[in-house]
């Protein structure tokens, strides 16, 4: 394994260099373009274009009679473009919805492509061999003239995106605003469409028709989990795409029977799945952790609040309470209540004396604050929003855990430190 790795990265074999370069360039450029289609929520349109280039390639071959990459590229470009126009047209001019239009154009164009492809194969023309490599890609066989042309297109794509970065960003997020600032929105949309078609046309060289969608969508989807900045997202997507291209090239070097395209997609998908689960801030695990943390905090604050309520009732703020006392005041599942109390003790907010729980000084302050926020909010709702007193409790029950000290100060100020809440309970300061 290590030997193969060494041999691969020494790049002593010139064909390794060209294959790797090709795979990296193609993957990175489609990832960059894909970032914008992703942000425009048009990710699947790339899938449609990828299928729609097949009839173009076949027609170009039928007309030219050979596999000149320039001709094939042109043919692919034309039908890819037509497919996008048709999707827009069908969606705009009939009651057919966008997803149906995409699926329809995708499968019909592909069907026509297959019909033409099988027809070409049955003609027995020797020049046609290898035409079906467009179906699954042939990244491992990219050499010479092909590589040069597709390399140039890939660089062209990257430069265009760099040049129009700001404008593309704007139409991805807010077309109406872009229009208002006087940007040529139609022209920019056209540019993005053209870039998408070009990215697809070159990208299917690497991974083939079906998996091309992954090259556009997956790096962008993965990159979205690591940042909120479009510039950084574009770079991360490009880097992930490039890495997958490199790794795919390595796999097909180490195991020549392995298909490069599907491996590139497999690797970029694994990166994406990893991002979905483990990315900070947006990943599934982080979200779950945050949710649990919030739930714990709410539980703890509720326990402190009920301790405070009990103290209010019999004027014994520092009296010890049993678990049963607390449950009688407000229902908690007993097990949860016990663990919450243990956590509170660890934090130094309650103490335990022979089976009775009571506040520490810090805990009492905390409980008092929650009660205060609850009652302040009730006062606010009834004073400013004129909500009946019997309707304000539920809302306050949730918001009391969320109000920040700044908001707290503002509420106090707006209501001018009210004495009592709408239920005539005293607001503790």
């Amino acid at each position, binding site marked *: 394994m290590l030997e193969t790795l060494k041999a691969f990265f020494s790049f002593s074999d010139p064909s390794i260099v060209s294959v790797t370069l090709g795979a990296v360039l193609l993957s990175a450029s489609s990832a960059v373009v894909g970032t914008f289609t992703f942000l425009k929520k048009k990710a699947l349109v790339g899938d449609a274009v990828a299928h729609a280039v097949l009839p173009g390639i076949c027609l170009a071959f039928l007309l030219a009679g050979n596999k000149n990459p320039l001709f094939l590229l042109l043919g692919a470009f034309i039908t890819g473009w037509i497919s996008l126009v048709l999707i827009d047209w069908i969606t705009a001019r009939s009651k057919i919805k966008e997803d149906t239009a995409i699926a329809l154009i995708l499968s*019909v164009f592909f069907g026509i492509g297959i019909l033409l492809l099988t027809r070409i194969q049955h003609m027995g023309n020797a020049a046609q061999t290898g035409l079906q490599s467009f179906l699954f890609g042939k990244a491992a066989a990219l050499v010479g003239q092909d590589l040069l042309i597709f390399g140039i297109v890939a660089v062209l794509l990257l430069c265009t995106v760099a040049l129009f970065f700001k404008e593309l960003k704007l139409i991805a997020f807010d077309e109406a605003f872009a229009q208002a600032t006087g940007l040529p929105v139609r022209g920019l949309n056209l540019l993005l469409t053209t870039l998408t078609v070009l990215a697809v046309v070159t990208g299917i060289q690497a991974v083939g028709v079906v998996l091309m969608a992954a090259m556009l969508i997956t790096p962008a989807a993965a990159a979205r989990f690591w940042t909120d900045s479009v510039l950084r997202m574009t770079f991360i997507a490009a880097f992930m795409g490039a890495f997958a291209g490199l790794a795919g090239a390595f796999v097909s070097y180490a195991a020549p029977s392995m298909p490069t395209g599907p491996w590139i997609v497999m690797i970029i998908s694994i990166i994406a799945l990893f991002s979905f689960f483990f990315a900070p801030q947006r990943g599934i695990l982080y979200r779950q952790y945050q949710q649990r943390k919030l739930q714990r905090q709410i539980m703890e604050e509720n326990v402190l609040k009920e301790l405070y309520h009990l103290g209010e009732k019999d004027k014994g703020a520092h009296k010890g309470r049993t678990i049963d006392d607390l449950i009688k005041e407000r229902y908690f599942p007993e097990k949860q209540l016990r663990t919450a109390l243990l956590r509170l003790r660890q934090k130094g907010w309650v103490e335990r004396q022979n089976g009775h729980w009571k506040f520490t000084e810090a805990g009492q302050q905390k409980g008092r604050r929650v009660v205060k926020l609850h009652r302040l909010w009730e006062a606010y709702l009834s004073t400013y929003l004129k909500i009946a007193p019997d309707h304000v409790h539920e809302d306050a029950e949730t918001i009391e855990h969320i109000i920040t000290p700044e908001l707290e100060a503002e509420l106090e100020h707006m209501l001018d430190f009210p004495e009592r809440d709408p239920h005539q309970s005293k607001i503790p300061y």
Partner: protein
Amino acid sequence: MDAVYIITTASLFAISCSLLGCFLILRRMAMVGDAISHAVLPGIVIAFLISGSRDSMQMILGAALLGVFTTFLIEFFHKRARLQTDAAIGVTFTWLFALGVILISVYAGQVDLDQECVLYGEIAYVPIDLWIRDGGQIMGPRALYVSGLILLVNILFLSIAYRFLHLTTFDPAYAASIGISIALWNYLLMGAVSMTTVAAFDSVGAILVVALFVVPPATAYLLTDELKTMMGISVLISIGISVLGYYLAVAIDGSIAGAIVSVAGVGFALAFLFSPQNGVLRRKKGSKTASLTFF
């Protein structure tokens, strides 16, 4: 006789697909259907490795489960990771499809599936693959029986599920309020879609089966506003494209499945342009009502 076998098989599959497709496009799940048709590939390969053949009932059921799993995965990414739906679909199906293709190359010697066949199937072989009973009695093409059985299962499913699917499609809030589980019927529908995809896989492949799911119902949708009529028209279109597609393929010597889909595309284009109520060309003439229907 071969022509009759092929056309009948194609029609039966097309009818199954388009009946389910009516609900797919009305629920705006056409691309989910597309995703499922790709994502069942690893299931097919794995079932093939385990059972050693590709027409066992276990295989159809196993791959159907994988289709349901795909639906679940898309929902999971959308809900739990807040990934936008289109991207969730795109990531999920390409990943599973890549896995399927890799599995095919790894077990190339043991799996009788080639990559091209996965994409567009080979319905021309239907008459060759005969079902021969233990006693040596020849019962006719096996795919014919499979397609018939699948259609029967689908009709049975839809006759039970029609009311529920209808409600959850058009008024999910009301359906939920009277205690109909939206998720359950959604997964059942997707299970039926996966099962049909797997069964039709040999004959029409992973991508062209999507055309059978989407194109006839979309064409019918342009011709009527009523669900039952739409299903009826879809059935007629399915038969029509199978017949015409077969003869087109024979005439120009190309893939039959490809030709069927191409004919379906032409049919859609005609409906799109000339449909009495919804056709683009018709609408221009009666411009007043046209603008009303347009917005």
